[in-house]
């Protein structure tokens, strides 16, 4: 049977984006080790609700590690202590009875706190809107097999494309840089033939939007890669830098126009 544990939580509580927040200590009792971290929070919230207290607001949705909605800095680490794992897939067997767990929202100027542990990540959407696509309309495209793509290239592009847009890379970075996030999308298209026609304009536009949103500069320390729950690699950032340099030299049009 599963083992039960009692935990002390220090949770960031903040009423809304206008108020200042603070850590609040909450006890979590009888937590089974086969529960997920978010199920532990469900139980804490159930307790609070029964006492008539405001439950802790946190973002989550699929609970399968793919939608990218869950977040949380747990004991100083985005998505908690387990490598390659989102918070929703983190299980309580990674903790022990009597442990104190500090739970905070993502901390970044570009991700303002909305309430408790939920932050506003629409900056990520705006970066994607600036250039994270191939400029084609629905219909009128060639047969899928007219474009042959070497398997190794397709696989590498796929690896970059698996970014779930959670923002852990930003939360992990001292400078709150979004380079890993931006580079993943730029890399996907830089690798694939479909992305070639606009590769430099894309890199330029997405980097410009990233800067406009207030994300910091890359530290080159690799904290983003270490905390990324889906293993997006630093080589993507190297590629982004090359693409960006290419944009400075080869860009065919003024992307600001």
């Amino acid at each position, binding site marked *: 049977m599963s083992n039960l544990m009692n935990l002390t939580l220090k949770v960031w509580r903040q009423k809304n984006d206008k108020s200042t927040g603070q850590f609040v200590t909450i006890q979590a009792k009888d937590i089974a080790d086969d529960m*997920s971290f*978010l199920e532990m929070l469900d139980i804490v919230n159930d307790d609070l609700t029964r006492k*008539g207290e405001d439950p802790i607001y946190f973002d989550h949705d699929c609970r399968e590690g793919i939608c990218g*909605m869950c977040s949380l800095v747990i004991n100083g680490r985005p998505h908690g202590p387990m490598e390659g794992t989102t918070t929703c897939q983190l299980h309580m067997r990674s903790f022990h009875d009597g442990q104190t767990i500090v739970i905070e929202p993502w901390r970044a100027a570009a991700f303002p706190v909305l309430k408790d542990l939920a932050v506003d990540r629409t900056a990520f*959407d705006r970066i994607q809107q600036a250039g994270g696509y191939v400029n084609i309309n*629905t219909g009128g495209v060639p047969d*899928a097999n007219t474009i*042959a793509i070497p*398997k190794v290239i397709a696989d590498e592009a796929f690896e970059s494309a698996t970014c779930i847009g959670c923002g852990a890379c930003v939360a992990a970075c001292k400078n709150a840089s979004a380079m890993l996030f931006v580079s993943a999308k730029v890399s996907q298209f830089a690798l*694939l033939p479909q992305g070639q026609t606009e590769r430099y304009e894309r890199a330029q536009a997405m980097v410009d939007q990233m800067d406009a949103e207030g994300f910091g500069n890359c530290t080159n320390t690799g904290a983003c890669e270490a905390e990324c729950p889906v293993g997006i690699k630093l080589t993507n950032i190297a590629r982004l830098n090359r693409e960006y340099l290419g944009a400075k030299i080869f860009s065919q049009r003024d992307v600001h126009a």
Partner: protein
Amino acid sequence: MLDSKVPAGPLAEKWSKHKFDMKLVNPANKRKFTIIVVGTGLAGASAAASLAELGYNVKTFCYQDSPRRAHSIAAQGGINAAKNYQNDGDSVFRLFYDTIKGGDYRAREANVYRLAEVSVNIIDQCVAQGVPFAREYGGLLDNRSFGGSQVSRTFYARGQTGQQLLLGAYSALNRQIHKGKVKSYTRHEMLDLVKIDGQARGIITRDLVTGKIESHEGHAVLLCTGGYGNVFFLSTNAMGCNVTASWRAHKRGAFFANPCYTQIHPTCIPVTGDHQSKLTLMSESLRNDGRVWVPKTKELAAKLRKGELTPADIKEDDRDYFLERKYPSFGNLVPRDVASRNAKEMVDEGRGVGKTGVAVYLDFAEAISRMGEDTVRAKYGNLFDMYAKITDENPYKQPMRIYPAVHYTMGGVWVDYNLMTTVPGLYCLGEANFSDHGANRLGASALMQGLSDGYFVIPYTVGDYLANLGSFAPVDKNHPAFEQTRKEVEDHVNKLLALRGTKTVDDIHKELGHIMWEYCGMARTAEGLTKAKGLIQDLKKEFWTNANVLGENEEMNMSLEKAGRVADFLELGELMIDDALNRSESCGGHFRLESQTEEGEAKRNDEEFTYVAAWEYKGENQPEVLHKEELIFENVKLTQRSYK
């Protein structure tokens, strides 16, 4: 009798002819129209992007913090298309036939044929967007096989096909947002439909951050809001998936069709305890290489449950590979409903495994010895990792434990061939509608339908409606209907916020889930359903007298969000029971114990039930009225499904 508006003519020519017959809106006039799209999954994002490309003004709404979070993202296995790249005998007609048969002859022929027809365009579109599908070493696209089919027509991106397709549609949507053709509203929930002179003219939403109740006007409204599987509390749906948008539209006149058709997916990670918040699916593609088994005897199963034996201790002769035994030609690749019912049968016989005894094995030992662990890892690595994280067991070393879980809902808002509901100007796309999967959906068909509806059907059909409006005038946002509907939404919210009882909303949701799973799950009887109806009515009363909803409207309030959704699930649950009671035959995922063949398979009653059951809302606590759409089969012969 409902009019499906299926065009006349031979099956293979209906869609082409209809596309020509429909009226067009000229490019200069398209920008005078605004279209509201609710939900940004595959159906919603693809529709919004395609319509905006044509020149319409589009507003999108999603409850998540970004359009990219929609639950389409979690689809694992793949997407079907009749490309016949494998030269193995596939064709549009075969995909049509497999889908009709897989749905147990309870879907509309013309819709399914159109789906198969445009399936090939979907793959072209996605590849052009840069979706990184799996490829062969020669650089061309790879395929795999899936349940309910004997050809390899499933395109995939490792175990993350839904993610890659959704990110493709999201990229197309982003492009239009950047161009200013789409205005995206995130963290917004649709709470009602606004009708003017009988036509859909807008929606009422709640801003989930500020609580502001807002009106949005448009010339047409598209519901792309997914399925209602969370009525069972535990399902493979995301936590936020809900029926509210569809249900509120239903209460405004959109008929709700075949609500009892729910899909219980055979390969999910079993339930472990009461604390569980959701169930996790393991892709059906695992059944390509995994073998499903239980021990031959109850005694061995008991020892496995107690931990006295491990699966490795069970000799080959003592294992019952029950799907291979009962269905030699399809084996482990029988359709989902058949695989699920058989797993339940094993558990009911006392041969279930795992601590709870409510599981069967899915074993990869044979595949690993045949292909090597590395090949298995390349094909299914992320699924194996996910399983290991959740269960703390290594599926490379011991068989997975799996059990069926609620996964998909074939029923939904009734739509005609044009995807229009019974409310003019209100459309419904993707899982939220009822149209293409009959009583059971085949694997890798949900992604296909969502994208078919969004990229290739609605851009044509909505134009015909708008062209026939006879006016390009903007919708009058000062019309009293907006104020009236907004007021009704506010009253509803206030009524919920006034609940100060002793039960949490989750308590009630869990009870509803237990009732639905017990009486309206994998096996249903008249007696059980009748009992369940009473239980749900009582539970609904309890909700409105004894639920506890905290906080206020003007804040991020998850207690209020949940309460609104559960209130609607309670009403839907009762309709599902009514529908399941009415349909005394078995078909696909709807299994009435009273109606089975000698071998225990679902036995249809084509004489009486070859129709779509579409329900009309008649007011609070009034019985809903049944309307029938007769299903006419001109191109396939109705037979007892056999996968033997």
